[in-house]
């Protein structure tokens, strides 16, 4: 209690009220990391297999899809390292899908802390994405094992993976921010996003590589900012001869619409969240 005397010389300073990041930078990071770690712990707390589930879930989905697309539809026949590609795509896209899916209700779900404590609002959706990243890291270890098992040769371009991951993470955060803050006002967002998420799963080259899709749909598919990211990861990680982001779109100029959409969504998320954050407690 002796600190009180020492601080008694301190003058009152203006407080700016609730905001997206209010309460100091150190506290922001401490909260973000703690909340994410606790969320990660919590997900597998009462399960017998614990963290194993984090890997098992995508692996089981992978098993089903692998059977369907190599034994029934035979998409994989023409594609180099199709099983590994499929697994990698599922894990990477799964990060986006699970993070954004959990982000929708995140702010509303934390109603207690938002309405009754001085909680920096931005922490809530960010922590969801960070938890997603923890899961992704665990899953990537499994993917790496499979890559060696299926005979993918290590390449220097593997080192570029973090660049693609960075682009994906930023996009995931942006979408999460928009969804979480819109859900406070409009509960429709939850339903809409479950449908849009499914559309994105089939609309993004996850199950199939882009060149398998008919040429006329390429422009449409490549409007989705996730498509060039997924395609680029494929080039860097598995198949250097694959088209890659630019070639799949038909040239660097044709990549522009996706980039514009990406940037617009990112800017929109920041503006929207900053505007809504101070009033979230009243809207809930």
């Amino acid at each position, binding site marked *: 209690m002796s600190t*009180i005397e020492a601080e*008694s010389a*301190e003058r009152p300073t*203006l407080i700016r009220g*609730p905001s997206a990041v209010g309460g100091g930078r150190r506290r922001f990071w401490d909260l973000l990391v703690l*909340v994410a770690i606790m969320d990660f712990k919590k997900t597998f707390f009462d399960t017998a297999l614990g963290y194993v589930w984090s890997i098992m879930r995508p692996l089981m989905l992978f098993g089903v899809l692998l059977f369907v697309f190599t034994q029934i539809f035979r998409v994989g026949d023409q594609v180099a390292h199709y099983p590994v590609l499929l697994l990698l795509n599922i894990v990477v896209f799964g990060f986006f899908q699970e993070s954004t899916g959990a982000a929708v209700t995140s702010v509303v779900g*934390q109603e207690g802390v938002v309405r*009754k404590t001085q909680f920096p609002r931005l922490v809530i959706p960010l922590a969801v994405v960070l938890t997603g990243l923890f899961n992704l890291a665990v899953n990537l270890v499994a993917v790496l094992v499979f890559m060696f098992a299926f005979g993918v040769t290590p390449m220097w371009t593997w080192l570029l993976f973090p660049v693609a991951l960075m682009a994906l993470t930023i996009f995931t955060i942006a979408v999460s921010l928009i969804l979480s803050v819109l859900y406070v006002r409009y509960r429709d967002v939850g339903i809409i996003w479950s449908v849009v998420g499914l559309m994105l799963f089939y609309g993004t080259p996850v199950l199939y590589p882009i060149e398998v899709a008919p040429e006329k749909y390429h422009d449409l598919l490549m409007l989705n900012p996730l498509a060039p990211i997924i395609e680029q990861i494929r080039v860097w990680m598995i198949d250097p001869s694959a088209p890659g982001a630019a070639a799949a779109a038909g040239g660097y100029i044709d990549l522009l619409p996706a980039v514009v959409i990406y940037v617009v969504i990112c800017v929109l998320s920041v503006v929207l969240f900053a505007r809504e954050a101070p009033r979230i407690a009243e809207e809930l």
Partner: protein
Amino acid sequence: MSSTGNGSKSPSVLPEDQTYDAQREPDRSDGPAAIEVQGLSKAFTIPEHRVTHLKERALTAFKRTEHRTFEALKDISFDVRKGEFFGIVGRNGSGKSTLLKILASIYRADSGTVKMAGRAAPFIELGVGFNPDLTAVDNVTLNGVMMGLSRSEARKRLDSVLEFAELEEFAELKLKNYSSGMMVRLAFATMIQADADVMLIDEVLAVGDAAFQQKCMDVFHNLRDVGKTIVLVTHDMTTVEGFCHRAMLIERGNLEFIGDPTEVCNRYLRTNFEDSLGVEAIKSAKGVPEYHTRKVDAWVENGNGERIENVEIGTSMKLKMILQAQDELVRPTLTVQVRNANSLAVFGMGVKSGDPGMPDRLAAGQKLELEADLENVLAPGRYYVRCFVTREHAGDQLGLQPIEMTSFVVFGMNDGGGVVSAPGEISVNGVSA
């Protein structure tokens, strides 16, 4: 609104308050400010028809959405000095909680400024953000960080929190397996360990059993004595009178009065007295609020004549009160009312002139001693004793003054729950086919 000064102005209406002066020292009214609030206003727009679906939004996009504005706070200005225990008093919906939430950076004010020295920690509710799926250790750490500690600081305090809550053995137990009593203990321990420069508290005292409430009281005494700056929102007048150096009264978003806690209490009780059970009769006879009597002392005794604060259920107790007339009291009546923590008037007792021993008039300065013999049938919890004193004027007008007397805690087992455990026996008369 003119009474927006600081506590150095003494209230003009009440002669002078002697009851708690000893406790209120030292006077901090000249100390440095911990909180400065200037011209704070806050309005909520309440839509007549809330739009929560995009479809409705689309359909009503070009219509003007009808809504009314509710002004929760209107141009509030005040200072809180460093080391002050400051009470904010008001009825439900008066805006007191909104004010606390603005101070705590939970709501944003429409206009006006708030300045704060150091770190403020809000305690709007016990155990906010506690996660039932996490262990006590995780929850306490997370809560500490939420209250503004660093992660290492929060971990360092872990032991003392668990020790205070007497829950060391259950540190690794998940909260969902805690009893509600354990949960409250943990939440309270976490709260007082946050050690913020300014503590903003919203009636957290209203929870827990009697023994726990007593512990809370002790902690508040402690915090006050070490010179913490505390802002407490409450409508429990005993707490205000017992703890606060200064208090302010808010009514419908306006600052009605700021200064001496006793004065604040009296004003609050007056704004409230229509609702009061014991006053109904007096009100019908045109009671006007007055200051004509002061409390000298009030306490609870057990059967052996010893002063006590905790009364066991089922034992006999005496309620003793000494009042002094400040003014001449003609045909005075006294109504003593015992209320529980939920402000429910559990019972009342009255004496009026004409009753044995009760004089027809009391001269100014004369004291009146009252004693109530009670068989304690109250359910466990905290109880507040309030006294309404009236005097007669010419005609049918009555001068009325409510006075907070004392409070006590009832402990023990109450088999059937409820507000009282009524005397009597229940037995089985027989079993038939």
